[in-house]
């Protein structure tokens, strides 16, 4: 059950709120100016709604993502963040609404064609292939570019070998980019958690997607690992120009990394804007206060 709220990282709201209120790290205005200059939406969700039995996970959610931006989606546990990403990647089918990926509209995104549509993703709970090496896991991210049959592979025909060579080269580049050289030939299941998260990012990046969906890529990491991961996410955008949708509970990371932030609460979008706007939004403060106790609310009052 991908994307269910089970196993979400424990996150304490109190420190978050104080950080929101204190104002964590300004976002450079130049970057935002550049973004609005080429303000074409690469991904548009309109009126998205989905429910599971009696539970309404999302209702009437609109989201517009501009090419090249880092778009954060935040909200308390169970707010519907993972459901949103699962709908974009075609694993869930929305009951209402449409999705336009790079101008192409869908009521249901075909998950098996997702990679060819230029969308790659990571999962909230690790979804690696435990029986494969790190390198093979990463290489599998380019499987959508293959056209060769099993006969060509068994016989080792030139076309299959060329295909393997191209993929091996792309894989090597990502291995270097994410500093995974030392573990590249190990079985992925033997790696510590933080590195496995990084391998999953590598598997998504090697596809050279236009849109990258990251569901809590830093959950369960130490502060150092988080900072490192944030650096990789930013570098992926800056160097490869990929558009990123980022779900993350650590508000400090979100505010520092993203261009725009959408806030979900009980399946509804309650705020949307720049980090500074969202931080100042009374509805956001209320949503977070409404679920937090103790000193944080005292602090606000």
């Amino acid at each position: 059950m991908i994307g269910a709220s089970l196993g979400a990282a424990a996150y304490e709201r109190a420190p978050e709120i104080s950080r929101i209120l204190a104002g964590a790290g300004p976002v450079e205005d130049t970057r935002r100016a550049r973004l609005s200059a080429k303000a074409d939406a690469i991904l548009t969700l309109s009126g998205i709604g989905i429910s599971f039995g009696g539970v309404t996970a999302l209702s009437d959610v609109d989201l517009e993502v501009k090419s090249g931006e880092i778009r954060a989606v935040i909200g308390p546990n169970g707010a519907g963040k993972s459901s949103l990403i699962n709908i974009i990647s075609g694993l869930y089918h929305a009951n209402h609404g449409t999705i336009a990926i790079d101008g192409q509209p869908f009521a249901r995104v075909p998950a098996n064609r997702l990679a060819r549509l230029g969308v790659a993703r990571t999962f909230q709970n690790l979804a690696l292939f435990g029986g494969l090496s790190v390198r093979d896991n990463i290489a599998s991210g380019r499987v959508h570019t293959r056209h060769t049959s099993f006969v060509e592979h068994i016989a080792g025909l030139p076309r299959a070998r060329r295909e393997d060579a191209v993929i091996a080269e792309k894989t090597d580049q990502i291995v270097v980019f994410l500093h995974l050289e030392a573990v590249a030939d190990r079985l992925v299941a033997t790696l510590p958690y933080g590195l496995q998260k990084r391998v999953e990012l590598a598997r998504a990046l090697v596809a050279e997607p236009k849109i990258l969906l990251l569901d809590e890529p830093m959950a369960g990491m130490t502060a150092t690992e988080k900072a490192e991961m944030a650096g990789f996410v930013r570098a992926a955008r800056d160097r490869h120009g990929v558009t990123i949708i980022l779900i993350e509970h650590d508000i400090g990371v979100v505010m520092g990394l993203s261009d725009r932030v959408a806030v979900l609460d009980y399946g509804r979008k309650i705020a949307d804007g720049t980090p500074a706007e969202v931080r100042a939004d009374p509805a956001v403060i209320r949503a977070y206060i409404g679920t937090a106790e103790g000193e944080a609310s005292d602090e606000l009052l």
Partner: protein
Amino acid sequence: MAVQALDAERLPIDWQKLALPAVLIAVAYGLIPTYASSYLVEAILLPFLALSLAAVGLNLLTGYCGQLSLGSSAFMAVGAFAAYNFNLRVEALPLVATMILAGISAAGIGILFGLPSLRLRGFYLAVSTLAAQFFVQWALTKFGWFSNDNPSGVISAPHLTVAGFSLDGPTGRYLLSVTMVIVLTGLVWRLVNSAIGRNFIAVRDNETAARVIGVPVLRTKLLAFAISSFIIGVAGVLWAFTYLRTVEPAGFNLDRSFQILFIIIIGGLASIRGAFLGAAFIVVFPLVLSRLGAFAFGGLFDSGVLDMSQRIVLGALIIIFLIAEPNGLSALFDRLKRRIGSRSS
């Protein structure tokens, strides 16, 4: 920050994997045909080879691609009966061509009974492959055409000739069998080490992630069923033509399917070597046990009691072994090799 290198758990290099098979092939062609007794060939090597090949085929489907099947014996039966009928009804069809056509027939039935895997997983899939088991046995018994209307239903295997050489003797049958096993195992080895083999593992380890990155999940599963059934079908031909020398539906029952499943579990899932180790264990161990039993209690109990207690001992040993080494003989083998390696260095 670069990641620290950790030496343990590195994947083995390919040439190391090749050394042992090379030695085994030399033994298979150099020593065995000259020195092995006909008892060794008839009672041990021929069933071992056929079961090993069937286990290689099942391991491809279950070990590598994660699709649990209890229909192996049905695919063996399809192979054996298809070979018998091609041989009977097509004039002057070469033996190798017969075997390939038999494999293709089994692959066709395999794809048909693999279709439920597009919807079902794990035990539910296993139960649906049982349908193959019962359906094939029923069809082969029900329609006399398959056994050329032979009243007993037990038909003798045809004469075996390749390029004018008769292979009816034990050595000839052994050479035919060992060659088929080596060639097909070599092809499977290439397959599992290719991008297609990695697709199998991806589907097994995380079907959802596989789908999202663009692995053609449905096609991959059906391909696994097809290739696996092809190989198991040829194993069925070897079983009937080189080992039993008869073709009959009764031998391809559910027990045989379970036996092949045990072989890959004991030998080690997703390991070609495991298929051979497991088959050796399943073929040789009961013989050893029965020799020991007859030697120790020969006069005391009748053979029925001895036979039953052997099964119990065998079952108990398998359970104890799997608790101690859940990854099978193949993992045990690796551990021994590492220990010997570390001692010598």
